[in-house]
């Protein structure tokens, strides 16, 4: 009987995990001693950071996705059929239209879902760039036609994907309207639950003077309660209101439906996950990575990438009966464009919070460079460069007693 490794979720984390496992187990897959299966929602794989370029720079919405099968190593069997049920107790994943898939080890990479419908009026009263490239393109249409008035970029719930994206949206809007020569006719505001224009204080210290210099306002402590699309007003739990002409919202996020349906995530559907070895809490044969987990780090592609490697190496250690495993150190590295072709990187680990820094053109070039190698990085072939850039992102540790079934 071969070792059956199943990965659920065909985004950044799931694709990379499957490819790392396929590469490391190449000979065993060829000899029939191992199977690597990726269960994804469909054939299209989108580069999600490009949604900012689509929404605020007019990039074409159909130019940032690829066929998932073109991204996978030949050792990986791909099933383009969404997972309908994950039975952790009996080690079975059932897809929407296919049969059950039994596994020996499972990696869950089902991601996060932006859900504007969970706030009254938000779906009808706002546009967003967190629900796919086509919806991001609707923002570009609205921005292109906008001539005068008040635009709010509103953080409608936390946590959400890509923490820098609301600030980046405002920097991009500022630059766009300056180029059109109508910046003085457009009021730009960040509406946020947090006390400052970026959640982490040291990064806010960088953003705040830039916002002041560019005339971008911050409306703090605004936990969104509802939106009245007719009156064009948003209301907060704190009792405040924000009137707008165009509302661009970051919708509240939650775990994927297959996780929420199971009830093993928390109330928002985030999977309880060990923040070191990436195992689903209470299970020695299931891992969770990326946006799907309840780990208090940024929900971002870089995190999914780094956690993929930890989970894949730990699955391999499990298979080989190793007494050691890898522990993720909480490394995040989120780029943020701040205008004028400059950027910063929000970097931290569990032990070290983000530090302040000067925006630079080099960091902007690095951000764009990471975007250019995204597709080939999913193959796992750029891990040497990731290791060189990030340094250690995990540490070996001795496996706790009872953590291996080998």
């Amino acid at each position: 009987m071969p070792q059956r490794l199943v990965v659920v979720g065909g985004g950044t984390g799931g694709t990379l995990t499957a490819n790392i496992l396929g590469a490391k187990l190449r000979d065993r897959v060829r000899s029939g001693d191992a199977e690597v299966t990726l269960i994804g929602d469909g054939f299209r794989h989108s580069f999600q950071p490009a949604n900012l370029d689509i929404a605020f720079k007019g990039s074409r919405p159909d130019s940032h996705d690829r066929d998932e099968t073109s991204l996978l190593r030949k050792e990986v069997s791909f099933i383009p059929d969404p997972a309908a049920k994950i039975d952790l107790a009996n080690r079975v994943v059932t897809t929407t239209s296919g049969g059950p898939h039994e596994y020996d080890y499972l990696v869950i990479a089902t991601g996060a879902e932006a859900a504007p419908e969970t706030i009254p009026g938000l779906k009808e009263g706002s546009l967003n760039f967190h629900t796919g490239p086509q919806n991001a393109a609707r923002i570009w249409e609205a921005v292109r036609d906008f001539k005068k008035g008040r635009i709010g970029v509103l953080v409608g719930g936390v946590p959400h994907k890509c923490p820098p994206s609301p600030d980046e949206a405002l920097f991009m809007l500022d630059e766009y309207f300056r180029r059109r020569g109508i910046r003085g006719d457009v009021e730009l505001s960040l509406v946020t639950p947090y006390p400052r224009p970026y959640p982490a204080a040291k990064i806010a210290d960088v953003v705040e003077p830039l916002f002041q210099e560019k005339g971008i306002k911050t409306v703090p402590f605004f936990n969104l309660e509802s939106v009245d699309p007719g009156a064009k007003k948003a209301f907060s739990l704190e009792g405040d209101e924000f009137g707008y002409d165009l509302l661009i919202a970051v919708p509240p996020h939650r775990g994927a439906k297959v996780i929420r349906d199971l009830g093993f995530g928390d109330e928002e559907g985030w999977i309880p996950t060990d923040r070191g070895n990436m195992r689903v809490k209470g299970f020695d044969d299931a891992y969770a990575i990326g946006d799907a987990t309840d780990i208090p780090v940024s929900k971002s592609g870089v995190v999914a990438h780094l956690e993929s490697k930890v989970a894949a190496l730990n699955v391999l250690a499990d298979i080989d009966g190793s007494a050691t495993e890898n522990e993720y150190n909480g490394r995040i590295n989120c780029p943020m464009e701040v205008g004028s072709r400059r950027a910063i990187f929000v970097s931290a680990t569990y032990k070290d919070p983000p530090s302040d820094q000067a925006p630079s053109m080099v960091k902007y070039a690095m951000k764009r460079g990471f975007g250019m190698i995204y597709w080939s990085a999913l193959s796992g072939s750029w891990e040497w460069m990731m290791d060189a850039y990030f340094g250690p992102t995990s540490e070996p540790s001795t496996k706790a007693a009872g953590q291996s079934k080998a």
Partner: protein
Amino acid sequence: MSTAGSRKVVDSRGSFCPGPITDLFKAYRASNVGDEIELWATDPAARADVQAWADKSGNQVMEAAQDGDHLKIVVRIAKKGR
């Protein structure tokens, strides 16, 4: 309106800013007027952030003190919504 509510403990130990206040906001969203939220945090910045939010929003910080290895902040929900 009754002001007698429940108390919910929110454990944010080990997470940096904005972890604790993010967890507080999640609990605030699920709370009712009269409830108390007991936030545990190891990030010292949590004290000032929570106090600033309470001052702005009309809620009350009942207690903010070191309790063993963590900061214990008790917030009474006095106001929520319009």
